[in-house]
């Protein structure tokens, strides 16, 4: 891992066109400004990981997704 010290208003540039600037440093955390092309997805790490876990537990192997839907339909009828 590359470790770099930065002060407020200083930034780092990653690759071609991704810039991360330190806007504020406080007791509660660091506020960052990220500049990237519109097609570059930018995510909070812990939220991305939570979505990843949700997707992994929801994913069905190709052959079984229809039986998952059948079970879901059955679970709906119970309500």
């Amino acid at each position: 891992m590359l470790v770099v010290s930065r002060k407020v208003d200083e930034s780092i540039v990653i690759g071609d066109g991704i810039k991360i600037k330190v806007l504020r440093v406080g007791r509660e955390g660091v506020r960052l400004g990220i500049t990237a092309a519109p097609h570059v997805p930018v995510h909070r790490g812990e939220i991305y990981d939570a979505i990843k876990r949700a997707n992994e537990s929801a994913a069905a192997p190709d052959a079984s997704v229809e039986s998952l839907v059948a079970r879901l339909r059955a679970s709906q009828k119970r309500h």
Partner: protein
Amino acid sequence: MSTEVGSVPADTAVIAFADGLPGFEHQRRFVLLSGPSFEPFTILRGLGPDAPSFATIDPRTVVPDYAPRLGPQDLARLDAAPGDALVWLAIVSLDASGEATANLRAPVVVSPASLRGVQLIDININADAGSDAPAPQYRFDHPLRAA
């Protein structure tokens, strides 16, 4: 065209997810399958060997006033303009107790015009708020009641 998956009709449009889905970043091609035997669900089926598939539902059948914001980045990734018709899908799963839940916090959005899809992630929704916008109220595991 889609002969690699026998149960997908040959004329089904392939939707491109440029970034895949979190956890399945390399799965870029999906089709949507719906029909009377699936209602109210729609299948988001990955194409290719060992591809993941998902059961999904229109989030507005779960929460009628569901209206998360779509930021400019999301529209750019969908190659869509504000006001374009978009298909919204919440991924559904069954938990250990057999309770069905829908992921309303990270919906999948598809543009039928560009045939592109993305899964929304909070920071994109709030990207242009310019301040500490409150986190969306929607849950990863919203209980699914009879639709």
